[in-house]
């Protein structure tokens, strides 16, 4: 068996002096979708930030495609093929939708650009009419789609998704779920932090549950509902 795409072992993370993650370990294989579940404040978002190098962290092993990334800065990690969709979307409100996309566009590690605008708009039809719209003038659902689209044009191999269903209308959650299933079918690996268990079940193969910064449980997604929390 080849090495997993993302390999985390013994990950600690801090905000200032306060430790938020304690020895977290998990893996994501190529083409796999993995769910991170757990209560509010458990440390799901922090785990994703730690992978991106956005919080102070230390790990026994933190590797992407077999290569250590624990000493790399955020932009280098992104360039190795990690797309990040943060929890509050963090759209550039001053820039138009198209400028948001344009800023993020870069070829994948193989040099290919797999995400021309037409393909993005096929995935998220709502975005097609909003090219010139300022990010700040978009609705929450539109911003969420833009956040995913912005991550995709970096041509990632691994997508870190932080609560894409939070604060958006049910109809948008449905569209988002369909889009994510499509992405998974193309072979993209996904690490999804999500409280919406239904969405996780639609998409993910395995799940990890974080309790107060520590790994609480891990197993197949189908068994996740049965674990008490």
């Amino acid at each position, binding site marked *: 068996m080849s090495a997993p795409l993302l390999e985390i072992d013994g990950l600690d993370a801090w905000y*200032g*002096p306060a430790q938020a993650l304690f020895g977290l370990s998990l893996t994501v294989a190529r083409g796999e979708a993995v769910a991170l579940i757990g209560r509010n404040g458990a440390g799901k978002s922090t785990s994703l930030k730690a992978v991106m190098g956005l919080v102070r962290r230390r790990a026994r092993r933190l590797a992407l495609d077999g290569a250590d990334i624990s000493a790399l800065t*955020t*932009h280098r990690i*992104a360039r190795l093929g990690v797309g*990040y969709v943060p929890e509050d979307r963090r759209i*550039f409100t001053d820039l138009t939708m198209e400028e948001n996309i344009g*800023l993020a566009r870069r070829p994948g590690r193989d040099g290919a650009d797999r995400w021309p605008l037409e393909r993005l708009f096929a995935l998220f039809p709502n975005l097609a009419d909003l090219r010139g719209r300022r990010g700040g003038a978009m609705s929450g659902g539109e911003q969420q789609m833009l956040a995913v689209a*912005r991550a995709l044009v*970096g041509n990632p191999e691994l997508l870190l998704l932080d609560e894409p269903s939070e604060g958006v209308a049910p109809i948008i959650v449905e569209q988002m779920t369909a889009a994510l299933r499509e992405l998974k079918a193309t072979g993209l690996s996904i690490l999804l932090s999500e409280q919406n268990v239904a969405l996780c079940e639609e998409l993910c193969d395995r799940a990890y549950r974080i309790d107060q910064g520590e790994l609480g449980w891990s197993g197949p997604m189908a068994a996740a509902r049965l674990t008490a929390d």
Partner: protein
Amino acid sequence: MALDALAFQMINGLASASGLFFVAAGLSIIFGVTRIVNMAHGAFYMLGLYLAVTLADRLPGPLGYWGGLLLAALAVGLLGAAVEVLLLRRIYHVPELYQLVATFALALILNDAALWLWGPEDLLGPRAPGLKGSVELIGRRLPEYDVFLAFAGPAVLLALHLLMKRTRFGRTVRAATQDREMVAALGINEALLFTAVFALGAFLAGLGGALQTAREPANLNLDLAVLGDAFVVVVIGGMGSIPGAYLAAVLVALVKALCIALGTVEIAGLAFNMSKLTLVAEFLVMALVLVLRPQGLFGRPQAAAARAAASEAPLRPMGGTGRALALAALAVALAVPALATVWAYAPVLALDMLIAVTFAASLHLLMGPGGMASFGHAAYFGLGAYGTALAATGLGLPTLPAFAVGILAAGAGALLFGWFCVRLEGVYLAMLTLAFAQIVWSVVFQWEEVTGGSNGLIGIWPDWPFDSRAGLYLAALAVTVAGLYLIRRLIFAPFGHALRAGRDARMRAEASGIDVARIRWLAFTASGMLAGAAGGLYAFAKGSISPETLAVGRSIDALVMVLLGGLASPAGPVLGAGAFTLLQDTVMRETDYWRALLGALILALVLLFPGGIAGGLSRLFAGGRADG
């Protein structure tokens, strides 16, 4: 008032507005992306001017002249890039205050570098080829170069607008101004972006300076003068807004132009020379904007400053050891006059130290418990000194009432300026305090009839029993001890708790019923009065004062003393002021390049010993290492 005079002054004003705008725009762009207020930005402007004068002189022909100007600006941009890579990268993670003093240290070093390279004399550059003449406008002759400069401002404004809107670099800058982390998460090299942004900002400042070649001589005071003006402009226009910077620069320039054009006017039988009021006018514009729109004309409301959670140990009342140490220090201080027989210089040095301790303690009250970093504390020191001196010499008051007048003058100044300052936070507050101090300095410098202008005031001697060296020294000791005691009482009173609560969590403090702005205003005033007391002592100790007494350098001295001592410890200002005075009276006296020395000291402090002397000592005694 004649219309032609106004038009003339307006073109002249627009020409100066252009230079100011370039500096302010660079400052704003750099702050937007890196969150650093570059105190060395005025120095970049000054270097741009010096370099341009040198290059335009050496290079032949019109091409040489204009090419020299451009080369000078580019060189300053390059210097900016080097500064970013070598210095700023090390201080992005330190608290805001340390960033401010570190870039100020850089300004000091650059100033001495200019002194070393170009000497102390003013340098006038050649006239601009092709623009040496003048044009006629409503019967007045306007220098062509001023007209050219008046147009250069809007041209650069347009160029910057296009850069920001149309280029990838510009979009990246705008995105990073909103959310740097997210920009990095998209794979954009943050470090490279920061370097480029700093280079651009430095280039703009350098260009602003270079373009003044044909208008004003290069001199070593320009850096701080321009920095103060640029802060006023940025505060008015709104930090981060380029059009705001232009509008504010024009507004300030036009108000000044109006004042000058009005000349002497008669109001209610009194003759006012309006042209001397230009500084006050600038202040009034800023005050008006701050009252109506605290974030500036085009600025966005400030987010509550996310304070780097510097876990500060809670203040404790002085323990037995502390009390013993304080008493021992007092005993030594009391014995100093007796030392004079063996070491004549001892009382002089000790008096300097006492004045410094009082001054530093006043700033420490503001910065430590108050959380407000003043970059213009010299204003209150100076108001105290001038108030005391004028009362003693002009009004002929005896020593003690004259001293009281000085303290009241400083208190009145702090009351007025503090009202505006306490409404701001962090770097905005620092900029505003510096701008106010610049204004006070300029008023003192220009108001010759009262302050003696650049000559200052002389013959300020205290009367009996303070007219002997020992008498004055003991009086100063009493003032210092009383000041320190009062501060301690204040800090441990409910007032002090409220002040610290407002510093640590403003929202929460306000929610629990504390009027934070009012508490801070009181602290600002108390601090100003104590600084005034130090200034009064200084006037009597030296016998003469000059605008130098309240120049920016003194504000920075106070900052260095507080930082040197350590911000977190109440004993900090005593240790810091003592050590600094010793250093100043020994090492720095010996060299022409004391500014660079001071700058290097500050940089070492920020980079190596952020806890100051007190922090270092308590760490030593605790035997533990600091938790990184």
